[in-house]
């Protein structure tokens, strides 16, 4: 197989667009960025060799606009489109449009996406392939009433889910019938704005399961392997916050079983490329198919750390007809953990905090990897996902990896917007996390512990620092004023604007 791509359009933004472009650049491929009007100043535009505007800020009118993106690909003479994750990455009609335009879509064939893309259809497929699934509906509901009736039958709590989506968007856990209507409305609305599809179904809510997923990879010659698991149970608002591999709850037998099932699931739909089979694992260590993400996963770096692979390169190779380079199981080496840095305020129910990043210092040193999509001076727009960076580490053992990630997070400085940096460190320091015994209920359960309890010594340091800072500004202002007018006064220090 000879490489045939020369130019790759990345139909995405933020860190994942940059991640994909990095591998392209290393392979000597030219890169094409697309951007919405809100993203003209984004880093991915500056790092690409070409850049085309694809529409106004709302994703539906830009990053989800198939025509605009295909137009850009044609103008740029791109051979291939990498969709990243989210946006059009799991949209089978876009895959067909690429096929029709003669542009390679870097991902599975439309048929595999059809089979897995709609959550409900995927569940039906899996049942047929003898893969265990979570009890629940096999198709989206047409009406609220229908959904209510089904929920009643399955029994609360239930989980409302976007049929066309993933990544925790358009999901709502509903405790009781009284909350059903508002959850239904919110889930549908988020599903629409995230995936352009408001179809919603529901599943029985398993009691505090673990979320464990298996990375699979298939080539076009019928080969499919798995690259071990990722533990993704640390979730807030149904979105992953910290991921790690190996999972602290898997043993080699369970890993092999889940890996086999994941490969079977992928093969049953004729899968090609990188995919992730997500499972829920309950307290008895039974596991259930949850969904298959038919694209690169946000948390793929932890798999890269313990395997030494470049998964984006594998995606590009497979899309150009290459066979998988090996078919034996790969034993993970050491341990890796990733933390997602969000522009949000954990103390305000994870309220997003878009705005300008005034200053940025990113951690470094041994076995620390930063995947960020921002820069100092960048204005984080309010239209898209609030994740600004992924910080991941590797170490020989899990305790060392925790210590390393905590150390790295301690070096991270983001000013101008609120982030979850401290919250992330609190998670790493929490006894349940340290023990490796945490399920999807962990973060909500531990919420107050993770937020509370300022250190009295640090509060004292803050007061001392603030008082001296006020004094220094007063001295500086007095010097300036006396130099200019020979009359010095001092007042509110904080209103003079920042001292630079």
């Amino acid at each position, binding site marked *: 197989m000879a490489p045939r791509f020369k130019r790759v359009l990345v139909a995405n933004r933020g860190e994942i667009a940059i991640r994909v472009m990095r591998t392209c650049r290393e392979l000597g491929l030219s890169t094409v960025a697309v951007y919405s009007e809100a993203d003209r100043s984004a880093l991915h535009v500056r790092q690409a060799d070409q850049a085309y505007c694809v529409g106004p800020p709302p994703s539906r009118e830009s990053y989800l606009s198939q025509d605009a993106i295909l137009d850009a690909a044609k103008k740029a003479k791109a051979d291939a489109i990498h969709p990243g994750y989210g946006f059009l990455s799991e949209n089978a009609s876009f895959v067909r449009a690429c096929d029709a335009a003669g542009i390679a879509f870097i991902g599975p064939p439309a048929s595999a996406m059809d089979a897995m893309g709609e959550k409900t259809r995927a569940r039906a497929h899996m049942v047929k392939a003898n893969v265990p699934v979570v009890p629940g509906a096999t198709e989206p509901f047409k009406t609220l009433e229908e959904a209510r009736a089904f929920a009643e039958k399955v029994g609360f709590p239930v989980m409302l889910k976007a049929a066309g989506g993933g990544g925790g*968007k358009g999901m709502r856990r509903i405790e009781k019938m009284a909350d059903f209507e508002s959850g239904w409305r*919110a889930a549908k*609305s*988020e599903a629409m*704005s995230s995936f352009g599809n408001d179809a919603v179904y529901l599943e029985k809510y398993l009691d505090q399961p673990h979320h464990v997923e298996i990375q699979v990879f298939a080539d076009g010659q019928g080969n499919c392997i798995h690259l071990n698991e990722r533990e993704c149970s640390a979730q807030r*608002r149904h979105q992953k916050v910290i991921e790690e591999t190996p999972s602290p709850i898997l043993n080699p037998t369970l890993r092999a079983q889940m890996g086999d099932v994941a490969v079977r699931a992928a093969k049953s739909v004729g899968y090609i490329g990188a995919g992730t089979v997500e499972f829920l694992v309950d307290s008895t260590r039974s596991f259930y198919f949850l969904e298959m993400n038919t694209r690169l996963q946000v948390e793929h770096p932890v798999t890269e750390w313990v395997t030494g692979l470049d998964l984006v390169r594998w995606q590009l190779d497979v899309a150009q007809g290459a066979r998988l380079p090996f078919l034996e199981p790969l034993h993970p080496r050491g341990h890796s953990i990733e933390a997602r840095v969000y*522009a*949000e*305020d954990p103390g*305000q*129910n*994870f*309220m*997003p*905090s*878009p*705005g300008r990043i*005034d*200053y940025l210092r990113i951690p470094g040193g041994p076995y620390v990897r930063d995947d960020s999509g921002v820069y100092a001076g960048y204005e984080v727009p*309010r*239209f*898209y*996902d*609030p994740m600004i960076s992924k910080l991941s580490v590797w170490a020989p053992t899990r305790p060392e990896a925790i210590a390393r990630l905590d150390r790295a*997070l*301690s070096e991270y*400085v983001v*000013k*101008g917007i609120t982030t979850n*940096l*401290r919250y992330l*460190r609190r998670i790493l320091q929490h006894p349940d996390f340290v023990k490796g015994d945490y399920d999807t209920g962990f973060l909500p359960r531990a919420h107050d512990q993770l937020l509370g309890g*300022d*250190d009295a010594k*640090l*509060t*004292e*340091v*803050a*007061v*001392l*620092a*603030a*008082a*001296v*800072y*006020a*004094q*220094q500004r*007063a*001295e500086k202002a007095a010097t300036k004023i006396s130099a200019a007018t020979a009359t010095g*006064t*001092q*007042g*509110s*220090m*904080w209103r003079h604007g*920042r*001292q*630079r």
Partner: protein
Amino acid sequence: MRTTRYYAKTKRGQEPETVDVSPLGGQRYAVTYLGAKHELESLVLPHGAVSLIIDGESYAVEFEEVGDEVRVLVKGQVTKVDVADERKMRMRAAGGSFTVEGKQTIAAPMPGKVVKVFVKVGDTVTEGQGIVVVEAMKMENELKSPKAGKVVEVAAVEGTAVENGAKLVVVE
């Protein structure tokens, strides 16, 4: 060495504590706070950063301003500190600001889009009741009433974009 007295508090409603600051020359200061005296060396760096050495202990401090308060980041902890000098304290006493009970404004905590307004003028609300839903960054965020009371103004309109800090609803 003239000593300047500052008044600092880290929580709303708290009585401010005194902080006495005496310059020792250069960037060094003697500071008395909560009955203890410390020697501080405070080097102001670009971008609102300060390198502080307190009795030999080193702290990388970052400052951000939010209105009258300053947010101080030390070893991952963010502390909001309100520092005033004597003159500012007198002005506050005269102006009677910081007596904020009574009317409460629910403002947009970020730029976004109002997707739902649950109340209208005249409604009675309880503390913690959902008032408005603002969408930003693909997440819907419900804003709750900070107190029990009555809705006296509704500025939020469903479907419209709002800026950070925009008044949405006033509860009295």
